[in-house]
């Protein structure tokens, strides 16, 4: 996900553990989906410790992004097509 910076996004959590991001999604978003590691979002594979939860709120997609030295970030980005793909269960 090297080009995640090219996607306009909001940071909901930063320097968190993967578990903290998963718990945040469960606590704050009614609509969320479980994907396997490697599920592509914004053309890049999502990595994580299963179960990986990705939330959808309107056209927003909320997903984890892990960096080696900075832990896991929980990001929110707006993309109608990505949201629809998650809702419709179309895997990468």
């Amino acid at each position: 996900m090297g080009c995640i910076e090219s996607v306009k996004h909001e940071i909901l959590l930063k320097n968190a553990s993967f578990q903290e991001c998963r718990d945040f999604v469960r606590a704050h978003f009614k609509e969320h989906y479980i994907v396997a590691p490697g599920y592509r979002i914004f053309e890049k594979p999502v990595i994580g410790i299963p179960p990986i939860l990705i939330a959808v709120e309107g056209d927003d997609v909320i997903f984890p992004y892990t960096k080696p030295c900075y832990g896991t970030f929980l990001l929110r980005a707006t993309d109608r097509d990505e949201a629809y793909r998650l809702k419709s269960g179309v895997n990468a």
Partner: protein
Amino acid sequence: MGIGREGSDTGARRAVLVLGCPQVPVQTSIALYLAHVLRLRGLGVSVAGNRAARHLIQVADPEGRYVRESIDIDTYFSQLAGGERDYAFAFVFIHNDSGLVYAASVHAMTQGVVIPVVYGEHYEEMAGQVSYARETIMANAVHNPMPLKHRIDEVIPWVVSNL
């Protein structure tokens, strides 16, 4: 996708060392030693890591005697997920939560064997979260690489010949 059959190494068994944040001093030293041991056993070795982790390896091994190929960590995961790249062995370096994320992700996607290399001051806590691995290399090593080196010397002959 053929495991360990990419590039000019067709037919050779290959291993990848998935590096974590290089903030713990032993990582680069142990990665190069592990590459040396694997190379002696006939495996070609690649490393995947962020820029700093790869530069530490490249500066210490300028002629590529130990590490044949260096890959950006995001490129590695993208190619692994896409079925374009895989290895017979993936040694995933773990000293923090990100390392656990990388190891679980490799485990879910690879057709090869995942061997976590767990170190740092919280190594026991970290090792408790990689129960899916058939073999784990772990030691309390932060500045001194010797405990981890000894574990590598004990484990690698068994791992490479039996897994």
